[in-house]
């Protein structure tokens, strides 16, 4: 057997950066490959957003316009809801994908990665990239429903929508890694998910405009929503997907400002996530 075909002789001379980028790519590739291979999971995770879309969309839609202040008469509630559901899909997929790192840690595979000659920074970045990509693809499948609901697509709009989904998913994935970075067991983990996932969904304006109504409760809701990254994703997505159909009074910020907020959240979550994950025991 060949004893002297040492691959390390070749790689040591290669630039460190190229090697690390390849590491990021490898981690990303594994996540995407797993996702593509698992059709049941792809279709299984479409069920939830579809349920929300139809139950809420048609159910709440029946209440009539009186309850939905600020929505123009020609925009049905389900259309208003639709961008929120796209973001919800990205939220769920990205968060679950990022925290799968805890499973991996507990049940093996992560250790194969952690002893590999790839820095943990690359591992964390690859994980964020993988989670974001999967979340974007998953939400893009829901995007196929758009034309049926009467959402008009053109090339630019589709590209902008996908980019928004990707950015939102990157924010959520980073948050997921940040939570999971030092987590050693699945216990306590479900609690975090419940206290994070559902509030992020319901306090984001995915289901209703945040600008509607006066009084203290509405004010509290609006204030809380503004520390929720999901809010900015939903706002940006809704304004891009339904541009021209909704009055700007329904939104807290313009899409450009929303995107800036998302970028800010991304940095704020990603940097500590990577640092925490790289810390060695």
């Amino acid at each position, binding site marked *: 057997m060949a*004893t002297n075909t040492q*691959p390390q002789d070749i790689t040591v001379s290669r630039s460190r950066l190229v090697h690390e980028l390849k590491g990021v*790519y490898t981690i990303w590739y594994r996540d995407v490959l797993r996702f593509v291979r698992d059709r049941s999971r792809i279709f299984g995770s479409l069920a939830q957003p579809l349920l929300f879309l139809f139950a809420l969309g048609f159910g709440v839609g029946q209440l009539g316009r009186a309850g939905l202040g600020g929505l123009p008469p020609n925009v049905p509630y389900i259309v208003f809801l639709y961008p929120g559901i796209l973001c919800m899909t990205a939220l769920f997929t990205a968060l679950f994908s990022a925290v799968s790192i805890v499973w991996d840690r507990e*049940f093996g595979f992560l250790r194969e990665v952690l*002893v*590999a*000659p*790839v820095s943990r920074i690359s591992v964390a970045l690859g994980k964020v990239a993988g989670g974001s990509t999967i979340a974007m693809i998953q939400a893009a499948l829901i995007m196929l429903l758009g034309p049926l609901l009467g959402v008009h697509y053109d090339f630019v709009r589709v590209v902008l929508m996908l980019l928004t989904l990707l950015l939102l998913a990157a924010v959520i994935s980073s948050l997921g890694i940040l939570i999971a970075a030092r987590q050693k067991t*699945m216990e306590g983990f479900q609690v975090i998910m419940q206290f994070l996932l559902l509030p992020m969904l319901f306090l984001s304006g995915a289901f209703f405009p945040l600008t509607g109504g006066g009084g203290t409760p509405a004010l509290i809701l609006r204030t809380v929503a503004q520390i929720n990254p999901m809010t900015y994703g939903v706002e940006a997505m809704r304004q891009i997907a339904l541009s021209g159909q909704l009055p700007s009074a329904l939104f807290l910020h313009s899409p450009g400002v929303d995107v800036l907020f998302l970028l800010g959240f991304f940095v704020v979550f990603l940097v500590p996530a990577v640092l925490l994950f790289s810390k060695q025991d």
Partner: protein
Amino acid sequence: MPVIEVRDLSRKFGDFTAVNGVSFEVEQGEIIGFLGPNGAGKTTTINMLCTLLKPTGGSASVNGFDVASRQDMVRRSIGLIFQDPTLDERLTGWQNLQFHAMLYDVPAAVFESRAKELLEMVELTDKVKESVKAFSGGMKRRLEIARGLLHHPKVLFLDEPTIGLDPQTRRHIWEYLVKVRDQERLTLFLTTHYMDEAEIADRIAIIDHGDIVALDTPSKLKAMVGGDVVTLCTDDDERAQRVLAGLGVTPTKRDDGLRVEIDHGDRFIPLVLGAMSAATPPVTITSVNLRRPTLEDVFVKLTGRAIRDEEADQMESMRRSRMMRGGGRR
């Protein structure tokens, strides 16, 4: 130059000292076994040598690279087989190997031929396109061995590599490993609590409470236990002990009876039987066992305790059920 050099290596977790200043060297091509009960510090030592855990004292180098300051090079020099499988069950066997090659920068051309050669050796060539989920425990282990060797490591670390496998599969795995050692002059560093498995090692370190209490070849270690081991079961151990004292031997009382280490055990037994029946009233002997010393006896001699196999089995079944739950959750 030794391929592994360890000097006063220690690791503390808070107040608990898991590894307490161990020193040893391992030569290229050697099989070294770490033997000890659960929690003795075997896995902690391996984790430090593999750069998964930082030492809190002392130093260690693998393939000439310091484990603290040259982590990247250490990682390139080693292969690892953990207690629990670390394969991605959702991917095929081949994809798992491919993934490993990408992480270790094995060029695609080298990878193909190397992977085929290794799969041939572990007899998985025709299974490799299948999803790992469908693999048996033994097949998973064999795939992990092939994967661990893909990048031509200098040292292969194996932490309880046969845990949870049936005896036949266990024997098979060791056959592969010895073959690899012979073919590639690979160093194997293994931990186990199966005594019979530890025998394949060239040298064995007996580790207890974070200390290496002995490090030598299996035969020299066994020679530390004098002669034969005779185990007696009686209806009155206390009086039996007095009778044995009269014969000039000091037995140790164990769960399975009174243990005596003595040269020429075959000649000793009739003496004991005679002395027991001559006592007033006679001590009844219910069973006598005579055997050559095992590594277990060495461990008992050095630490005063047995490597409790029940305990090990318990851990094993716990681990297995945990893995099953994990598998279900994925």
